[in-house]
């Protein structure tokens, strides 16, 4: 019998299950959560505390900016890349500088040859900056620059280059990262000690506040903490605590909160846990408003957190790289649903090399599809009200607040960094995560499950380091011949004087040096002669990896092998974990150091930024059995063969060299040929690597 549906309403009493107000069955971890207990549910977009977005109409008026972080090789090549990306739908530029530039060295400096043009673009002078933005109108294009250590010369080059092409500072739009605190915590591309570094940060904030009203003078970055292993609440708390420190620095200089706070921007990493990550961005906005409110701003925008997001590099895998398309898509969706203001999406080959033109296109298309085909730009905070998302927003807000309180009780982030607490906390989390992956408790597709039997063909971008170096050296040489050297020296002397006297804004002085064609290395060296160069010393944490892995068979086997080695030779296997060149990304190296110490090795952890000569000297002096090199920025092709030659020259070829990090398959023959005994790519189970290394040592003991 067919019912008469014309009289039947869609919803019949008793059919549709009602919401269970306790929230049980919603999420395994939020049993018995009472949504009504959340104090934030009635917060909106565009009004403090900006839970649902910093602007009232959000993407309905203007979608987020597609801002892809890119730069490699020379200014000419990067400029061509930017121009093609703009033609293909990109809306803003985000400049990646190479490591020598970050560390304040010109490309022709003797310490840096392996890193020139590898992980970003080499910028030695204002001439390079002119080429970088050739055919790009700086009056119209928003430019973001990830620079912290050498922020003074880079800002000076940018401003003067713009002026020389007819664009005044007040017209410039964009962001300088200028977030030095997180460099001391996780990223390591600092140059000077913390105190003068903070002075430079303050000088830039002040100068931009007074002269560049459309430019963000600081981008407080949680991204690097995320990449170093910080979970969401920790990333939130430490980032905002850093932001608070910059606010206090600016206030101490007599700036009014409303004159600079609306121009502070933030930068978060977006990981794979979709609901947690989008909730993190909501929580960030509430917390920032809460932190700024006590400064009594008159302009509500001072309390609005605007952010750039980048999908996680940590979550990418070198194995089966096409899987990374799905990862980046999910993360980008999370950032958009969390209402970011701009976004970088990683390319599928970024766990292997710098992105190629083709993979950059796919990465950009991820955002274009989200803007053009999903209709998400029509929605403001579409997950608002969702029990799961509101629960996570509430939990993250409160959890992060307790971390912030802890930092405040130490006396703020500068003091907390000096105590080593934030770095230790992040390293502990990274070690636990690694142990969980190694044990298979956390599944990474293509790494510890569902591995592909066939290798995927991806054409990688290769930068010819020697060619870039030759090009940069030639240009530097030409620059030095064509400028007025006495005026350059005068400008640099003025810079040294101001740096030592603390009575002038250093950006003002750096602008003069840039106009006179002083190079980045010269400006940095002038400051270094007054401030000194900072060298961090950190011991690896111990016990965290083994505590998580204590019942793991592979771990037990590695530990017993190292005991066996100790019995046979009279001492434990000793390893030097070293970073070589200017690559400061040390999460992997530090996790390895922690884990190896827990597996029964004597571990020496080398300082950052070592030359092959430095590493060889330390290895020989400490009489290690193995030197483990972590390489993530492409310098291994040049520097590891050099290291092997030094061991050979000094008669210590018995010290075995192993390499880990991002090593493209096509580089393996070169490294093995130079004498490297093992290469461990991303996804290696550490205890298995340890076993392999000890077995090689035992083999050497039995058959010397």
């Amino acid at each position: 019998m067919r019912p008469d549906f014309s009289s039947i309403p869609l919803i019949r009493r008793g059919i549709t299950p009602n919401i269970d107000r306790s929230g049980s069955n919603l999420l395994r971890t939020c049993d018995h959560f009472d949504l009504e207990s959340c104090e934030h549910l009635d917060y909106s977009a565009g009004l403090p505390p900006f839970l649902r977005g910093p602007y009232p109409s959000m993407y309905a008026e203007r979608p987020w900016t597609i801002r892809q972080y890119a730069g490699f090789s020379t200014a000419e090549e990067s400029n061509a890349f930017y121009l093609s990306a703009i033609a293909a739908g990109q809306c803003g530029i985000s400049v990646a500088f190479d490591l020598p530039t970050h560390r304040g060295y010109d490309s022709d400096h003797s310490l840096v040859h392996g890193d020139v043009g590898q992980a970003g673009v080499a910028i030695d002078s204002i001439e390079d900056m002119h080429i970088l933005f050739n055919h790009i109108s700086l009056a119209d294009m928003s430019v973001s620059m990830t620079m912290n250590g050498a922020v003074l010369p880079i800002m000076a080059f940018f401003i003067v280059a713009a002026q020389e092409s007819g664009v005044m500072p007040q017209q410039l739009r964009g962001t300088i990262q200028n977030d030095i605190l997180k460099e001391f915590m996780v990223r390591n591309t600092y140059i000077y000690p913390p105190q003068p570094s903070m002075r430079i940060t303050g000088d830039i904030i002040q100068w931009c506040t007074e002269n560049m009203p459309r430019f963000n003078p600081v981008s407080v970055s949680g991204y690097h903490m995320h990449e170093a292993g910080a979970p969401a609440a920790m990333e939130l708390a430490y980032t905002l605590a850093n932001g608070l420190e910059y606010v206090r620095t600016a206030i101490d200089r007599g700036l009014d909160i409303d004159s600079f706070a609306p121009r502070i921007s933030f930068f978060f990493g977006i990981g794979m846990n979709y609901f947690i990550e989008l909730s993190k961005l909501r929580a960030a906005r509430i917390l920032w408003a809460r932190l700024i409110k006590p400064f009594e701003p008159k302009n509500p925008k001072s309390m609005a957190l605007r952010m750039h997001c980048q999908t996680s590099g940590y979550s990418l895998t070198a194995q089966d790289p096409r899987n990374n398309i799905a990862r980046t898509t999910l993360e980008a969706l999370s950032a958009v649903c969390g209402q970011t203001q701009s976004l970088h999406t990683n390319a599928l080959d970024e766990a292997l090399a710098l992105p190629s033109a083709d993979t950059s296109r796919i990465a950009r298309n991820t955002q274009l599809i989200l803007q053009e085909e999903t209709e998400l730009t029509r929605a403001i905070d579409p997950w608002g009200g969702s029990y799961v998302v509101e629960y996570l927003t509430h939990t993250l807000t409160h959890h992060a607040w307790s971390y912030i309180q802890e930092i405040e009780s130490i006396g703020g982030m500068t003091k907390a960094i000096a105590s080593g607490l934030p770095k230790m906390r992040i390293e502990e989390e990274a070690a636990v995560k690694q142990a969980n992956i190694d044990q298979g408790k956390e599944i990474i597709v293509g790494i510890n499950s569902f591995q592909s039997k066939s290798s995927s063909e991806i054409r990688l971008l290769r930068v010819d380091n020697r060619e870039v170096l030759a090009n940069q050296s030639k240009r530097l040489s030409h620059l030095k011949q064509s400028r007025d050297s006495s005026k350059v020296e005068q400008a640099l002397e003025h810079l040294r004087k101001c740096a030592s006297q603390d009575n002038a804004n250093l950006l003002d002085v750096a602008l003069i040096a840039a106009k006179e064609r002083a190079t980045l290395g010269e400006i940095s060296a002038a400051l270094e002669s007054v401030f000194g160069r900072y060298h961090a010393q950190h011991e690896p944490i111990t016990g965290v990896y083994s505590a998580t892995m204590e019942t793991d068979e592979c771990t037990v086997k590695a530990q017993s092998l190292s005991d066996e080695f100790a019995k046979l030779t009279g001492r434990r296997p000793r390893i030097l974990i070293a970073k070589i060149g200017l690559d400061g990304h040390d999460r992997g190296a530090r996790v390895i150091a922690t884990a190896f110490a827990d597996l029964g090795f004597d571990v020496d952890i080398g300082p950052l930024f070592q030359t092959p000569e430095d590493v060889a000297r330390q290895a020989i002096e400490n009489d290690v059995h193995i030197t483990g090199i972590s390489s993530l920025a492409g310098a291994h092709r040049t520097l590891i063969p050099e290291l092997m030659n030094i061991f050979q020259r000094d008669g210590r070829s018995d010290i075995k060299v192993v390499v880990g990090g991002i090593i493209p398959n096509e580089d393996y023959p070169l490294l093995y040929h130079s004498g490297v005994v093992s290469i461990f790519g991303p996804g290696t189970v550490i205890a298995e690597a340890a076993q392999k290394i000890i077995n090689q040592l035992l083999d050497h003991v039995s058959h010397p």
Partner: protein
Amino acid sequence: MNDPLDLLKHFPPIADSDWQNLISKDLSWQTIEGINFQPYYRRGASNLQHLFDQNDWLICAQIQSTEILPALEDGAESLSLLIDQPTTLSKEMPVDKCPLYFRGKAVDTNLFYSLCDIVKSKGLDPSEFQGAVAFPEPIEPDFVFEIAQGTRLWTHEIDLCHWHDKGASLVQEIACAFAQLSDIMAQLKPGTSPNHLYLRIPIGERILLEIARLRALKIGISTILQSYQAPIHCLPFMGVSSLRHKTALDQDTHMIRTTLQYIAAIIGGCNVIVSSQNRNELMIQHILRNEGKLGIVSDAATGSWMIEHLTNALAEAGWALFQQIESLGGLQKARSWIESNIEQTHDQRSQSILSGEENIVGGNIFLADTFQNETPEGKSLIAPLDSIRLRTETIRYKGNLTVQGRCSPWLYRLINLCGLKMDDHQAMITVIETSDGYIARNSNDQQISFNHGAPLNVTAGRLMTLMESHAT
């Protein structure tokens, strides 16, 4: 002339509420389904909230019978096999390992019984074996339900892809699903449990609407089943990827869409999600479950002010259309009427894509410079544009083009589609802007005229003929 300005007489003061209403209207939007969509919803926006089942879905691989082992090794938890030719099932079918879903034109009782025999031969209880033997249309529901009695097999499929591929909107798909369900229930003996029924649902990339659509289906199905006094209130959903916007010439970009579709399918609560034979698509599901943690959240949309609103709006609109179909005597009788409605939707959508009004990344905008020679996907609205791009590979002499006048975004798309580059010095075609469009002329003085905003595939075809005649 003595005409006092007297502004207030002509334009009375505007109340804040008028301005707010206008802004609200400006920001609001209507989907192709006719659903009104405000950008902002807050507490109290939706009177009705829903909570559906936990979404532990089965990862399913669409395979040929020779690909069973690799699919299982790649972590497929169920397998979907298309049977379009009479087939003898191998005794090696992994009935003891995972659910198997057979569908296709050649599915028949022989296949059903031979599957049951294989199940028994492996010492399994047929009443415990899960999977599908979906009989093709036309079906006598009573018959297929009767033979399935005593098993847990799904034998009757409500295939929304049928309507989707014709161009149906979400509301039309919902209404057709409701109507088809009602037709089936009306044919069953009273009191029969429809536990051998399932829905096969294409999932697109409009993620919020897709999640809402899946939830809306659950609401209406529940009402229909209760109206027939059926003992169950829910049916299983098998989600499949929509191919509507697929460009065969940019597979990596399409993986982005597939990921978004799976996310919607998972959050919307599909019980099974089918990946194509491409291993990468299977991996997407593993990544979303294991790394994205989407599986641990039950109906995450519960409470979302926006999605709850959309759920109710889609359910109501689908229900209203279903009531219209019912008033015409059910789906069988109303088929030509609803098909004609769907055709209009299809034409509207197709026109919008082919004219470049709606952007499909890699399909009609931001095209890849190079591509492999793949067959266009027949179910995709992009297929005519893919065909044009493939034709560019066959032209012997490509050359370049110059534009006299304004190069509008539409003309720029056309130029890209034809694989041409702007070059004033070595142009083989000159395009001249006119008052209502353009004239394109080759060096043999042959010319065509076309209107601005005309279907890109048609215009590109004519332009390429002009190029070919230049080349010859």
